[in-house]
């Protein structure tokens, strides 16, 4: 029985094959049939793979291009603005009247408006959002949470124009019953509505962070005879603090960046005041106001919206970095 050695295709491929191959067959026999080289990923396919990978990388890196685009455009237009308006003037002038004949370029009134609206919104959203999160995570039965959470998240899906409508035509008249001197446009109702709008940002993220707190911490607390309240406030909340802090930061960014509600319900006059019962313009409302008119491209008035936008960007950036630092500081290790 003549012995024919077939090598497995696998052996043909690597460097192992020659070593494992049996000694040359006697000359009388015909040479071994050579099996066709198994087609692994061929050269063409390897190129294809590489091209696809490069394409996917470009898509991922485009997010950096977007950031560069934002920073570039804001910076570029703001530089031409600050060539004509000194920075000191921009920061200290108490008036913002860039479109009047007697033009003043002080950002303070817009920053004050933005801060006031955001403060009202956060005064509502942070406590309510946090307590909601604690309730949903520690108290509510499973079924209640499953129903309430998506329902609360619907609050973020409501178009902001609709919120503006609600603030101007429902909340303000309602508040007027309590505060008869309230003007038709005011920062209070705009801030309150924004506050309700950002509750789910705060509560959902905080709740996720609280649910991530390991069960044994709660068990230990209950084992020592603590009540639910004590466990929630002294164990779960501190343990989830880093996640809760990032929820707060996100809520803050939303509150100062919100546009349509303030443009509709807070009035559009720059007003250097921290009194929420007054009408005032925020940075975002000013940008909307200018965009609705038609300013010629390249004029100083056109550049003001970029300077205002840059200020807004920097405000969110400062808070994001602050939040990042806080998060690192409070990160609990269990």
């Amino acid at each position, binding site marked *: 029985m003549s012995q024919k050695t077939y090598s497995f295709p696998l052996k043909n491929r690597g460097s192992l094959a020659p070593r494992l191959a049996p000694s040359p067959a006697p000359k009388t026999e015909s040479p071994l049939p050579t099996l066709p080289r198994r087609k692994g990923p061929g050269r063409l396919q390897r190129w294809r793979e590489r091209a696809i990978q490069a394409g996917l990388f470009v898509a991922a890196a485009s997010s950096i291009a977007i950031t560069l685009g*934002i920073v570039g455009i804001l910076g570029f237009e703001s530089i031409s603005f600050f060539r004509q308006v000194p920075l000191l003037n921009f920061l200290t002038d108490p008036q913002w009247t860039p479109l009047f004949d007697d033009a003043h370029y002080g950002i303070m009134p817009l920053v004050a408006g933005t801060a006031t609206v955001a403060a009202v919104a956060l005064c509502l959203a942070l406590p309510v959002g946090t307590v909601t999160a604690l*309730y949903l995570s520690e108290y509510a039965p499973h079924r209640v949470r499953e129903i309430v959470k998506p*329902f609360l998240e619907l609050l973020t899906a409501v178009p902001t124009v609709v919120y503006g409508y609600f603030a101007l035509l*429902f909340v303000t008249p309602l508040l007027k019953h309590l505060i008869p001197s309230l003007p038709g446009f005011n920062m209070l109702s705009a801030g309150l509505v924004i506050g*309700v709008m950002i509750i789910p940002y705060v509560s959902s993220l905080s709740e996720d962070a609280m649910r991530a707190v390991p069960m044994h911490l709660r068990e230990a607390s209950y084992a020592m005879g603590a009540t639910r309240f004590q466990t929630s406030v002294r164990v779960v909340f501190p343990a989830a603090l880093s996640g809760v802090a990032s929820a707060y930061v996100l809520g803050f960014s939303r509150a100062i*960046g919100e546009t349509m509600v303030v443009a509709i319900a807070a009035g559009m006059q720059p007003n250097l005041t921290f009194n929420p019962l007054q009408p005032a313009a925020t940075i975002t409302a000013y940008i909307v106001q200018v*965009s609705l008119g038609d300013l010629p491209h390249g004029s100083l008035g056109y550049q003001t919206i970029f300077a205002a936008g840059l200020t807004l960007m920097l405000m969110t950036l400062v808070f*994001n970095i602050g939040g990042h630092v806080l998060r690192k500081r409070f990160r609990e290790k269990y």
Partner: protein
Amino acid sequence: MPGEILMALRKDIARRKRTDKVFSLLGLMATLVGVVTLLALMIDLAWDGTSRLNWAFLSAFPSRFPEKAGILSAWVGTGVVMFVTALAAVPMGVAAGVYLEEYAPKNWMTTLIEINIANLAGVPSIVYGLMALGLFVYKFKLGMSVLTAGLTLALLILPIVIMATREAIRTIPSSIREAAFAVGATQWQLVRHHILPYSAGGILTGVIIGLSRAIGESAPLITIGALTFIAFLPASPFTGTFPFISFEWLKSPYTVLPIQAFNWISRPQKSFHLNAAAAGMVLMAMTLAMNGAAIWIRYRFRKRIKW
């Protein structure tokens, strides 16, 4: 005396239990704040808007006369802008998500991209509008068109799509990957035949959530010059003569529902406010329907696939 101590202890425990009850009630009330406001908002909108909501309202162009004004150009505009948005955001977002989950090496570049995407999600939407005004409208000369609007909103929802894609891919167990590689699949074959089909549900959910956010977004569109009075429709994409498909509609000026509603709210006349409420109802119906669809899809896919 032990009796007194016991009494004090009982009192203390009762007090703590009371605190617990009070806080439980407080929590329920806090939860209801959001729920009740949402209900109040919907009822208020329906109260004002139902009287105007009829077929004539849906099929008429805006007008100086509130009783004749309608939202035809606005909802058609919303439709075409959303089409462009989806066309731009979905391939880019999914590709970025796939890259970050399946391909990306662990290095500073990847970390930079990840941090950057998280930061982009927190950038105020009006800043995107300013960027689009400077870049798309004046640098690339795309004009104040449907194309510009669609691209701007696509950039806005890109982080949402990327995060949803990553989230969906992350739930696929690595045994699937190992099995595919074991039979000699290349990386792309794995992605194409396994990763993408299995994560399709999650991706679709994210895309719909993103689009429902884009539908209600008006601030960035105001900065790039969405007009509030458009009494015509964009050019038809189908033509009678040779290439049969025309891209003229991409360049046409447009308006969208939220901007039409904003315009009506800003007017002093009461009757325009009713129109705004009706337009708001249409908008709400669209976003709620999309969110409902997203929840349904998530539910179905979760039920169908068992690892």
